[in-house]
C-alpha cells in the first residue's frame, strides 16, 4: 500500500509520537506538535496511537492513492476534499484507489494531521519515523515530503469508518491562554518584570515553527543586577550554557520570549523564565502568527490537574471510538 505526493503543501512532514532518549546528544524528541490531534486521527482509522501520519502546516498536501485506504484528518480546520467532494474532519473515510485527497484554505488552527489505516511505513530512525530536518533524521530521507514521493503505508487491520462527537473536543478560547509554571531562571527577573510578563498581551511572531514559537508585543524584561558568572557571556540574559526543557521560555536579550517545542534545541546560553505546562503544548501547535496570547501563571498542583484533565479527555475519546 502507498500514496503518491502530487503537491506537498508548505511544509508537510511525517510525524509520530517522537524519539525520546536522545536529547542528551542534542537530538530532540520531535513528533507531532499537536499530539492530541495525531492520537485521535490514529484512533479514527483503527491504528495504534503511535503510528506515523502527516503533519501539514497552514496548507494541505495533495495526495493520490494507489489502494483503498482509510483516512482521517484532525487538528486545525481545513476543508477536506476527495476528488473534489467534501469530507468531514475528525471522521474517518475511505479513499479509493485512484482517488485524490486535497484541501481547501485553512480556516482555523495551524496544523492538520492525516492518519492512514495501517500507518505510514517509511524506515524509522532512532526508534521513530518523525522527521527532524536539521539532523536529516526520519521522514523521507530526513526531509519534508516532496512532489513525486511515493509514501508506503502498512497493512490496515480494519476499514471501519468512525466519527468523533465534537463535544468531546476542548473548547477554543480567545485570547488563547498558555499556562506557565515559573521557575528555572525566574529569579533573574525583577518582581515588576515578572508581573509584567503575565499582565501583557503577546502575539505569535512569524518566527514560529517546530523548534520554537516566538512571541512579541509585551514589554522588554528587566533583570536583577549582578556580575555575570564566568563563562556566561556579558548580556544579562546569558547563563552558562545549560539544558533546556521542552516548553521552556527563553528570552534572548530580554526582548521576545521563545517557547521551545517538539524540535527544541537541547541547550544553550539564554536564561529561561519557566515552562509552558505539558497539558498546553498541543495548543501551541495550533497557533497561527498574529494570534493573541496571554501567559497565565499556575502552580504545580494546577499543572498536574490540567495534565490529568487532558488524559481523561483522551480516555473518553478512546472509549467512544474503541
Amino acid at each position: 500500500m502507498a500514496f503518491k505526493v502530487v503537491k506537498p503543501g508548505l511544509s508537510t512532514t511525517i510525524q509520530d509520537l517522537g524519539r525520546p532518549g536522545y536529547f542528551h546528544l542534542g537530538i530532540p524528541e520531535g513528533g507531532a506538535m499537536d499530539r492530541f490531534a495525531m492520537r485521535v486521527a490514529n484512533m479514527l482509522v483503527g491504528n495504534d496511537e503511535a503510528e506515523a501520519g502527516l503533519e501539514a502546516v497552514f496548507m494541505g498536501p495533495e495526495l493520490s492513492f494507489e489502494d483503498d485506504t482509510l483516512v482521517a484528518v484532525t487538528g486545525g480546520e481545513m476543508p477536506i476534499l476527495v476528488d473534489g467532494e467534501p469530507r468531514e474532519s475528525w471522521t474517518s473515510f475511505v479513499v479509493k484507489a485512484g482517488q485524490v485527497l486535497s484541501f481547501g484554505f485553512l480556516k482555523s488552527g495551524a496544523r492538520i494531521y492525516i492518519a492512514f489505516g495501517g500507518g505510514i511505513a517509511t524506515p524509522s530512525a532512532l526508534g521513530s519515523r518523525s522527521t527532524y530536518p536539521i539532523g536529516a533524521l526520519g521522514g523521507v530521507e530526513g526531509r519534508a515530503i516532496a512532489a513525486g514521493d511515493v509514501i508506503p503505508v502498512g497493512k490496515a487491520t480494519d476499514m471501519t469508518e468512525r466519527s468523533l462527537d465534537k463535544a468531546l473536543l476542548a473548547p477554543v478560547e480567545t485570547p488563547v491562554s498558555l499556562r506557565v509554571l515559573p521557575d528555572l531562571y525566574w529569579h533573574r527577573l525583577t518582581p515588576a518584570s515578572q508581573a509584567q510578563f503575565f499582565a501583557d498581551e503577546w502575539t505569535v511572531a512569524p518566527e514560529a515553527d517546530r523548534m520554537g514559537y516566538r512571541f512579541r508585543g509585551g514589554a522588554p524584561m528587566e533583570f536583577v543586577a549582578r556580575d555575570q558568572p564566568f563563562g556566561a557571556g556579558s548580556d544579562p540574559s546569558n547563563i552558562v550554557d545549560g539544558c533546556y526543557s521542552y516548553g521552556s521560555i527563553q528570552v534572548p536579550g530580554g526582548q521576545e520570549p521563545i517557547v521551545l517545542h517538539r524540535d527544541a534545541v537541547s541547550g544553550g546560553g539564554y536564561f529561561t523564565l519557566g515552562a509552558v505546562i505539558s497539558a498546553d503544548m498541543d495548543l501551541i501547535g495550533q497557533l497561527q502568527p498574529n494570534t493573541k496570547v496571554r501567559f497565565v501563571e499556575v502552580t504545580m498542583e494546577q499543572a498536574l490537574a490540567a495534565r490529568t484533565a487532558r488524559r481523561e479527555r483522551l480516555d473518553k475519546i478512546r472509549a467512544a471510538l474503541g
Partner: protein
Amino acid sequence: MKTRYSFGGDEHVYVEVDEEMSLEAFFVALSLRNAVAEANIPGVTEICPANASFEVRFNPDVISPDEMMARIKELEHKAEAGEKRLDTRIIEIPVYFQDPWTHETLMRFRERHQDPEATDLEYAARINGYDSVEAFIEAFHGQPWFVSMVGFVAGLPFLYQLVEREKQIEVPKYLRPRTDTPKHTVGIGGCFGCIYSVRGAGGYQMFGITPMTIFDPTQTVSYLQDFMVFFKPGDIVKWKPIDRAEFDRIEAAVKDGSYTPRIAQVTFDLEAFNADMASTNAKLMEALNGV
C-alpha cells in the same frame, strides 16, 4: 558552589550545580547525574548533562514532581564526594583557520556583529589582548580543550579550554544570531569553543572549519558506523591547524572511508590538572604521539 533545584514545567527537574563555569562544577554535575542514573528512580525517562548543570526528564504520572526532586536532592552528598577522574580519550581535530567559507559567512552577517569593520578573528584577538591574529590562533590551539557538554543541535560539542582562567579566551556571542553557519565551523562564544555539527543558525564567533564529519545520520562515515554522534562529555580535543591542501585531502578521505581520526585513551584527573596544568596537558598531548 551552591546547587540550585528547579522545575522545568511538570516534566523536568533542572539542577544547576553552579552559576559559573568551572571543571569542579562539571565534575560535581557529572557525579550527581551518574548517581541519579544509578538510583534507577521510577519515572525517569532521560537525563541530560550540561556544563555545570543537568536536567532530569520524568513522567509525573509515575512519580510526583516533589518526590522526584526530593530523590535527586538525597543524592547530593554522594556527588560532592565523587571521584574527579575520568577515563576518556584525546582526539586530534584538524582545523583550517581563516578558511574561505566562514569568511564569506561572517562578511554576510557583519551588521549583526560587535565590530563590523573587523573579522571575527581580528575582533577576538584584539579584545583578548593579542597583537596579531596569528598569535591568537596559536593560543587557541596550543593547549587542549575539554568537552563539557554535547547538545544544542545534533552532536554539537561545547569545549572548555584547559588553561588557567586568566588565560582562557572569552568572547561575546554575535549581537543578533546569524541565520546561517557553515557545517563544521569551529568557533567560540563566552568561554566555550564549539564545532557546528550541522549547517544552521548560530551566534558564536567563527574562526575556521574542520574537514571531519562529527554527526552522520546515515552512519556511512567509517568512524560513525557504531553511532551517528562522535562526541561525548569528557572527551578531550587537541586542535591541529591545517592548510587548504590538507583540508581537501582529509575531507576526501572522510568521504571515501579511509580517514581514521587520531585518538588516544587517557585519564583526566582534575586534582593533578589543577596542581600542574602545563605538565598534565603535555602528558595528554604526548599520548597522541605515535597514534
